[in-house]
Each structure stands twice: as C-alpha cells, then as structure tokens.
C-alpha cells in the first residue's frame, strides 16, 4: 500500500522509511474489508480538511499568516479554516517559543481539542527551545508537554517547509486506524503514562 498525496510523488518525500513502517504496522494487524474501507474513507476526509488552531506565539505565526495569504494559499490543501477555538480545530500547530507561563495554557488548549487531534511543532523553538534553549524560563521543546506528531525545523520555517510538514501529517493520518486498535491513540496514552502527574492536574 502506498500513501498518496495529491501533487506530491512518493519519492519526493524524504522520510518514506518512517511512513512505510507505519504501513507495515497497519498491515500486520490486519483489518476487516468493510472496516478497512471505512477507515480509508474517514482518514481521507480528515486528512483533507485539517483545521488548525490559531496558536502563534512569535515569528513563525507571521509565516503562517503568509501561508494563509494569496501566494501560498493553504486553502488548496484544506488547511485554510484557521479556528480560534480549540473545540473546532483538528490540530494545534505550535508556532514559537513556549515559556513557563505559557506551558499550562498550551496543555489546556490541547486537552480542549476534540479527538482526533494532532500536534505539529513548528520552528526551532517549538522543536527544541531553539536559540532560547538555555534560558531560565523556556520549555526546551513542546514534546516535554505534548505528544508531537510532526516536527518542522527552521527559524522560522519557510512556507514550503510548513506545507511539507502538513503533508507529512496528512500521510500519517492516512495510515492511522480509526476503528479497532488505534495506533495513534496508543501513542498518546503512552505519552501521558510517562507524564502522569500532568494529566491529573490539568483539567
């Protein structure tokens, strides 16, 4: 099985090994024909109407605005409806540094997203703390507080890089299992099992 993204060839992606591994995992568990087809339909729907939550803390947010403007036009891929409320969004794209004061707020926003939900760490600061890693109040990467699906490096990433990252998310969604053993959900559960005290405390 090949994960298809419109307008982008399989060999144009650089980390096919990772997606192939997910495909193998999916194949190994096996699925009912009916459920499998339904899965594909649902995933196709989710992947092509990903609505972001407006969550930009610094420079990357301005590049994200460029992504929404006419030249890059993310509407072509179904990413355009940037939502201001987490209840209506599918994924949270963390654009910018997360500092101590922001960390609980971000966690709360994540918890408020409706399932299925995804996290993209966009830009050096969200990936690892970036140039501010050594600061006294910077979270060194959002993966310390959230389970991240896609990392987009750059300072800030070019709009093309953001597209690449968003397409990777689409590919990941296309191989997820909506019914039965949901491989993504397990990962999220694993993450929170490793960070137990946080989940309990944040309502």
């Amino acid at each position, binding site marked *: 099985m090949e994960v298809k993204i419109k307008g982008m060839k399989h060999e144009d992606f650089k980390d096919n090994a990772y997606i192939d591994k997910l495909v193998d995992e999916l194949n190994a568990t096996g699925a009912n024909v009916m459920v499998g087809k339904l899965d594909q339909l649902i995933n196709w729907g989710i992947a092509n109407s990903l609505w972001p939550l*407006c*969550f*930009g*803390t*610094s*420079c990357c*947010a*301005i*590049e994200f*605005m*460029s992504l929404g*403007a*006419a*030249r890059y036009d993310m509407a072509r891929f179904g990413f355009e409806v*940037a939502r*201001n409320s987490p209840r209506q969004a599918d994924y949270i794209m963390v654009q*910018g*540094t997360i*500092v*101590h*004061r*922001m*960390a*609980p*707020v971000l*966690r*709360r*926003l994540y918890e408020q997203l409706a399932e299925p939900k995804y996290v993209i760490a966009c830009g050096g600061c969200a990936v690892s703390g970036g*140039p*501010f890693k*050594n*600061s*006294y*109040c*910077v*979270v060194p990467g959002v993966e*310390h*507080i959230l389970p991240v699906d896609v990392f987009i490096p750059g*300072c*800030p990433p*070019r709009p093309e890089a953001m597209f690449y990252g968003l397409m990777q998310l689409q590919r990941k969604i296309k191989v997820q299992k909506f019914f039965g053993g949901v491989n993504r959900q397990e990962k999220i559960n694993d993450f929170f099992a490793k960070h137990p*005290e*946080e989940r309990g*405390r*944040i309502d």
Partner: protein
Amino acid sequence: MSDIQERISQLCPSATFEEGETLMVNVEEKDWYGLAKALKETKGLEFDVLSAVIGMDWKESLGVIYYLTSTSRGWEMIAVKVQVTDRVNPMIHSVSDLWKVANFQEREVYDFYGIKFINHPDMRRFFLRNDWKGYPLRKDYDADPKLNPIPTEDEKNEDDTVSYVEGKDGKIKAVPGKVFEENDYVVNIGPQHPSTHGVMRFRAAVDGETVKKVDVVSGYIHRGIEKLCEGLTYPQALHFTDRMDYMSAHQNRHCLCMCIEKAMGLEVPRRAQVIRVMMDELMRISSHLLSFGCTAMDLGATTAFFYGFREREMVLDIFEKTCGARMSMNYNVIGGVIADIHPDFVKDVKELIRIMPERLKEYHKVFSGNIIAMNRLKKVGHLSKEDAINYDITGPSGRGSNWSCDCRKVHPYSIYSELDFEEVLLDGCDSYSRYMVRMKEIEQSCKILEQLVDRIPEGDIRAQVPKVIKLPKGRWYQQVEASRGTFGVYIESTGEKNPYRLHFQSPCFNLVGVMNLTCSGYMIADLITIGAALDFVIPDIDR
C-alpha cells in the same frame, strides 16, 4: 553639557558626575525623587521623556539607570544612576507619578532584580509567573531547574497587589490593594486570542459594554533574552534582535550593531551604511503593510489583509534574494553587513517603488475610506500629546498624537541626516491617525529608497573587525527608529568579550502601557481596534 552639570549640582549638591558618552549623574537614593521632580519641572531643564529604565546588578550593589531626555533642549539626554547596597530588601523611590511610563518599567525591574519601588501603585511581577522563585537577572541567580520546574498548573489570577507606601515619618509599610474593585465584572481576553497580535493577555473590567480598566498580563513569551546575552559574545548576541520585534528585525539589529561599533570606535563603510538604511526602510514598509493587513482583519475586512500581504511578499522576495531568508534575516553584522546585495536588488526595489503609490491608492479605496473602518477607528482610543510624551509613546502611534519624535530626525544616525524625507505628523490623536501615519510613512520610506537606489556607492560591505571582539570598559546607549517607535540598546561592558549587561528598550513595551488609558471609556469591541492601531508586537514587549 557643563551647564546641566552645574544646574544639577545646585539642585542636588550630593550628586557626583561621570563623563562618558552621555553625562551620568550618580545620586543617592534619598535624593533621587527630589532630583527627578526637579529635573522634570525646573524651567530650562524639563526632562519630559523617560527614555529608558534599566535595572542593574553591580554585585556589591543593585540599582537602576534612568535615561532622561529633554525635548525642549533639543533631545538632550542624561543618565541618572541610583544605587542601593541592601540586597535582601532593596528599595528605591518610584518615579511613576512623574513619568507614567515608569509604571511598567519599574515592574519589570522588580521582576528581574527584586528592587521594590516605594510609592509605586502596583508592585507585582510583570513577566514571570507570580510563584517564580528568585530574581533571574541578578548575578547570583540560581538557575537550577528544580527551583522553577516547568509548571503544570495554571497560575492563580492575581487580584491582589501591594504598594510600598512611605509614611510621613519616613517609615515604609506594605499596603495591600486590589487590581479591580469589589463588584467589577472582569472579562479575560487572551493569551490565546487571534486579535491580540500574539500572546498578550488583557483583563478588562467592564460596565455593560464600556471598559473601565484594563489590566495587562504579559510574559507569555518572555524568553529571558537579556540574561542569555550576558553569557554570549557580542557577535553571538546579535541574532536575538531579529527575534524580538520580528517586524523590525533590520532596525533592531542595526541598533545593536551601531551600539557595539560606537563602543569599538569602528567606522562603517559607506556602502554598508546605505545598504543598512535601505534595508531598514524596506523593513518598515513590510511592517506597515502587515499592520495594515492585521488592522483590517481585526475589523473583519479579510480582503484587505490579502492586499497587504501581496505587496509584503515583494519586500520579502527582496530580503530573500539578498539575505537568504524571508524572516529573521540576520543580515547586519558588526562593522557592516554579512553579504553583498543581490544583482537583482536595484531592479526589485525600483519595481516596488513604482507600484507602491498605485497600491496605496487601492488600499485607501478598499479600506481607509470605508465607512465601517472610519466609524471604528475615528475618535476611538484618544491619546493626547501630553500623554504620549509622558508614556513615551514613540513611532507612528506617537506621531498620530502630533508628537514629533522620529529618531531619524531628532537623533539622526547613520546617513539619515543627508536624506530628504518628511516626518509624518497627524493631530487626530485617535486610532485612525495612527493608522494613517503608517500609510503615509510607507510613502516616505519609498521616497528614501528612491533617493538611495541609484546611489549605492561602491566599496567594502564591512569593515575589518578583530576575530575576538572586546569592548572597552564603559556604557553606551543607542537609539534607532524601528517600525514601531524608538528602539534602544544599552550595553555595559567590563572589558570582557561578553556584555556585563545588555538591555533592550523596546517601543512596544510602552505601547502596551497605554492600553488602560486609551481603552477606558470605550466599548469592549474597541479594545481590539485600539490594540490593532497601536500595533504592538508581543515578543518585543516580553523579550
């Protein structure tokens, strides 16, 4: 200079003086408030602008350096240094009743150094969480992450405040207070809100739909840049400037480079100067275009946003060709610029200048003359000239209140004194004036570019600089006109290769300081448009 020195000696006999780049007045804490009042009110001195408040830790003492400017004396600047030796409970008299801008500035100093300001109305932390342990910019700060782990709980809303009031007998006692009144209905806006232009949080007390008071809660993107700089060499510290006000990246970096060059006594080649100024003006155009787009979008005019971004992409293309990046360009370096201009640079800039007047007309047709925009912006967010000066609101927002404060005119730096451009001044004192100043500044920036584009001289793009840059012992302060106002850099050096203290005086910090003043009495919906017209960038406030 000496006449000021004489007059200050008369006002405060115990003051001592240090010569330097600007005259530095050393004053004892007990005399400080009296001197400040005299400096502001004495005829012939009239230091009406408090340009910078810089907290300091000299190890054996803590203190504050105030940079004061007198507009009536041709924007002459002096610095005043106040020191206290008590590290456990340091206290300095507040000047927030003389210069309103000091209100937030002193809270910042309290946050970083733990210096309490006597008679300050609202002594709370500003950037850090209210349960933060320690004062991070002190030299003996314990940065152990165990002391301040990544928090997992929301902090409590801080409704209580404290004020250290000096009684008649000279005794200081802490007087608890409340941020809001007992029966206030408080609406929370932010930190995750698309129209606060970043992660700013406002708590607005409303009476029906009318705003009574706005409490600014900042620090949701406070990254501790000033502390980080202290551990880096000068060339390493440069890149932070691009990430503070990312819409004034070139100007900010220009400022820091100039400050270091001034300290080194380095002459920047003419070609580099011209390129720098051109980049600054391109950045200003890009910033004002974004501001136009965002103001329009905050009012619901999404189409205008696309128009603004269309031209902004042209500017970004110019940056990309020459600097290699669309944002965070990292272009200026100490002694010049990092790379020569792209062969297409002149052509692209000419194209931009050619189309801009047409496009501006289009903007005015689409948005500026629109009845909804006029109703939402005109006579909203009144800020008088006196308040603009007192709150040190510089940049387009200050000039929208008819205050002539353009740093390019009052402290001409680089090659600005040779250029022919007008300082745009409007006297509406409202959101619409601030917005229109920006639109007219785009024209002026184009005018500057037009003068320079065919006259980029040949020559080196950077001066020879030593591999290891060490500044001599001393202190320097440099200001430039960034897109949003006067941006200042203060460097204190002990002769090492890293700064002892590097302070960034950001214009947006002052802009957010007037939110309470400009929003009170207007509708809650106007809070968004007032914020949009003031056009602050949050990472510049928080640093």
